[in-house]
């Protein structure tokens, strides 16, 4: 197995993986929204589960590690939507900037 290249998500048995955080927490609104949007993309036939996983796994390892679970879902959805020509990176960034302004996020 030493020759095997293990992608960032392939964590089982990694000596540096650390213990699993088993803390339960209430999902926040944005997490429900992420789940809902992902479900809608599937229901519309825009992407399947394996595409979604592949998109998340293609994130640079340091980005993957820094994101929360549902942030990875969102990042994966963005990759798929851009890949399929449904949205552009510029459109997504512009919308995020607009929402930041409206909600006063820094």
């Amino acid at each position: 197995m030493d020759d095997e290249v293990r992608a960032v998500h392939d964590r089982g048995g990694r000596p540096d993986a650390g213990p699993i955080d088993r803390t339960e927490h209430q999902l926040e609104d944005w997490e429900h929204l992420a789940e809902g949007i992902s479900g809608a993309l599937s229901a519309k036939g825009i992407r399947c589960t394996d595409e979604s996983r592949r998109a998340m796994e293609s994130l640079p390892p340091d980005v993957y590690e820094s994101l929360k679970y549902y942030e990875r879902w969102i990042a994966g959805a963005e990759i798929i939507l851009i890949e399929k020509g449904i949205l552009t990176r510029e459109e997504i960034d512009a919308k995020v900037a607009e929402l930041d302004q409206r909600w006063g996020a820094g």
Partner: protein
Amino acid sequence: MTARFQRGDRVRVRANGQRGHIRTPGYVRGKTGWIEAVHGEFRNPESLAYGGDGLPKRALYLVAFDQADLWGRRYRGAEGDRLTVDIFEHWLDPVGGDND
């Protein structure tokens, strides 16, 4: 296609350095286990992940491993502990008889 392996057959997981969207965990690649159950045939996620149709369908198995075979001395659990993983047929080679 029909399943090549049956319950109880010994198999070795391929360790071919394959990249891409693979569902075979790194910690079982190159390891030997046995077929615990035949799940049936499913479309191939390695193709589905890139917008393909996933056909032809591939046989999927529940493959069991001795924990000690996977982790060696790092494993501190009970003797006889096993771990099971879903693995597609194209990742498995037969083990046993004259070849083992």
